[in-house]
């Protein structure tokens, strides 16, 4: 099939493209930009005037809940939500049930994604068996099975010797370790950031040092073993200078933050809003501003959805009993556009943090639209207004902390390998 996308504003940071042009797609790949290739005859033409044409987003962390928690969400439901949100590649953390610590689970997820998925699904394998933090998972086998990295999910590796060996072993397998850093003893029974709201609400707090101490521990370990480490969901201002310094000294580290942490803070917990019960916790306004600056300055490489869909019951309990996590896959793109409007950084830089940079961290060729690249892309009406309501959310998880917010920007089309996945022929969802 040959598709011509006419007169869209193409932003492809990996190839330094930022202009209105035509995109020609042939056999699922970018055939040419601007000028029609010889013999090109469009089967299908998309008028993208006034719209953005972007590489499909690469999400470094979205929980699809399958296998094991299909009552919350499924690969079908969440990759459909991803496609509707312009996300074409999704990395799935290993804390499924069973845990992704064997190639059988990887194959199961890959197969289901192939059969019914509307996005490419990549797995992060387990760093330790069962994520227990005690013995090493079969990292090499996981890599062979297609895992793009290993991770211990949201669970700590409390034993520093085990962590050291895990990093050493991962480096000998040449696999990136995605680490969510939090000192378990400093977290203790904490459920929110230790700050002005924890003291008022009487909720046990998690200090910012729970993160920065854990990051410092990892940085000292990788001084000796040059293991590639990706710091996941950085939330605390005091972690940022350490990461910046490590990068400056040439350590092979990268970092991301969840989209919610760039917009929300502890203040949004007021009234015991369970949808703002996140892990890591929403921190102070100062932390949020520091994260925005770190994104603009390149200390934070990537923005991910940190999508964690829940069933209603998981949140229909008092705050500290509710399961942490927010369903955010639907709102990544409009919020990212808002970052540009807020003046955090220019749009191409933000798009890079959603496409080329996470793709590089995951070792994927996705996230760019140069000639010859696979045609994973989305077309966006950058100003289309909409209000976040449960009905508008495509994800089956309605635990979205932005409910009631006015958004500007809506994906109008998503192509995966040159084929429409949103809106698809079988897709009856309203755009």
């Amino acid at each position, binding site marked *: 099939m040959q598709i011509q996308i006419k007169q869209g504003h193409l932003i492809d940071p990996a190839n330094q493209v930022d202009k209105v042009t035509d995109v020609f797609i042939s056999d699922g790949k970018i055939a040419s930009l601007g000028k029609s290739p010889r013999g090109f005859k469009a089967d299908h033409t998309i008028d993208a005037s006034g719209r953005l044409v972007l590489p499909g987003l690469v999400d470094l962390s979205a929980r699809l809940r399958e296998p094991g928690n299909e009552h919350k969400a499924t690969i079908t439901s969440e990759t459909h939500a991803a496609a509707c949100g312009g996300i074409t590649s999704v990395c799935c953390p290993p804390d499924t049930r069973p845990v992704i610590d064997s190639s059988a689970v990887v194959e199961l997820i890959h197969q289901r994604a192939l059969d019914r998925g509307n996005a490419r699904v990549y797995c992060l394998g387990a760093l330790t068996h069962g994520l227990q933090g005690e013995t090493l998972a079969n990292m090499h086998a996981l890599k062979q099975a297609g895992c793009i990295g290993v991770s211990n999910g949201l669970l700590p590796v409390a034993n520093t010797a085990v962590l050291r060996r895990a990093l050493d072993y991962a480096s000998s397998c040449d696999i990136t370790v995605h680490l969510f850093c939090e000192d378990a003893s400093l977290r203790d029974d904490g459920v929110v950031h*230790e*700050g*002005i*709201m*924890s*003291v*008022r*609400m*009487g*909720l*046990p*707090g998690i*200090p910012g040092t729970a993160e920065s101490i854990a990051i410092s521990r990892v940085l000292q370990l990788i001084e000796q073993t040059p293991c590639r480490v990706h710091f996941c969901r950085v939330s605390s201002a005091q972690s940022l200078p350490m990461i910046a310094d490590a990068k400056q000294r040439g350590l092979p580290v990268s970092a991301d933050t969840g989209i919610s942490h760039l917009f929300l803070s502890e*203040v949004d917990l*007021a*009234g*015991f809003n369970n949808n703002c019960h996140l892990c890591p916790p929403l921190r102070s306004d100062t932390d949020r501003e520091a994260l925005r600056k770190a994104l603009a300055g390149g200390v934070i490489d990537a923005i991910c959805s940190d999508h964690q869909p829940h069933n209603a*019951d998981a949140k*229909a*309990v*008092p*705050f*500290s*009993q509710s399961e942490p996590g927010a369903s955010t896959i639907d709102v990544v793109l409009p919020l990212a556009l808002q970052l540009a409007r807020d003046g955090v950084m220019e749009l191409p830089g933000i798009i890079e943090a959603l496409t080329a940079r996470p793709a590089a961290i995951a070792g994927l060729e996705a996230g760019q639209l140069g000639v010859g690249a696979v045609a994973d892309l989305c077309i966006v009406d950058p100003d289309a207004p909409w209000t976040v309501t449960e009905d508008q959310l495509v994800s089956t998880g309605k635990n979205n902390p932005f409910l009631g917010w006015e958004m500007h920007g809506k994906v109008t089309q998503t192509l995966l390998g040159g084929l429409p996945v949103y809106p698809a022929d079988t897709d009856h969802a309203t755009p």
Partner: protein
Amino acid sequence: MNDSNIQLDDNGHLKHFLTIEGLERSLLLNILETAETFSGVGARAVKKVPILRGKTVANLFFEPSTRTRTTFELAAKRLSADILSLNISNSATKKGESLLDTLHTLEAMHCDMFIVRHANSGAAHFIASHVAPNISVINGGDGRHAHPTQAMLDMFTIRKHKPDFSKLRVAIVGDILHSRVARSEIHALSILGASEIRVIGPRTLIPWHIETMGVHIFHDMNAGLKDVDVIVVLRLQQERMRSALLPSESEYFRLYGLTEEKLALAKPDAIVMHPGPINRGIEIDSRVADSRQSVILQQVSHGIAIRMAVMAMTMQSQSGIQPEGGHADPD
């Protein structure tokens, strides 16, 4: 940060009583005045007024309590309500019933008011935002968050002795970190205009960022007690030793136990309060607890009047009841 909207109806009347935070000074004064009209009821030959006749109040205590539960019970009875006291910590939830299901079951019994005590901060907010609109929720203590009726009965007690809040210097001593009483008192005192609120305790028992609530922090008991008018001593729970917050009871008593010598640093007419139950010899010396300056037992009896006031006021928002003790004898 303002949680008050959920507790007020469209006319600004108290529909639920969940937290002091965000309430107007006039509303707190109204609670104190209303309690004043009820304070004579207990001394009458017939200790009842018919204000809540025909109403059903359910005491939902998910956490054990003696004085709060019994004073709420007595308050409800003196208002002529029917009262159900459910010790839920031993029943349905042990069988795996969810909090929402327990609530809906009680709703089906046509209760008009829930008095809730729960170990989780925010539980009363959660319940208030999920119950049927005709039910009022009164927070009898949620986690470390709030204990608004305790704070109001303490304000009532303070006012009996020191009528002008603007001249008051109040010290709250002890385990502020785990104390819902301290949090509610800080809000109440600052809304009522106390001139200075101090919290005194070791760094481990003072929550970080509490200065943002407008208090002064003291780690030295002697400095903290100097010239105060009111001392609120908080209960110290045994498990604080196990979680490495304190080395020992004896060291705690030596540093922060309220003794006659330390009390002498406060103003000569200072009053001593404690939300109870007290640990003699741990946070307070017996001679202080039983002294003329101690108003601990007055607090308990004022608790009934305050709880009557709050119950009557929240029911007024439901059905236009006039929340007054009628022909009560003045104290």
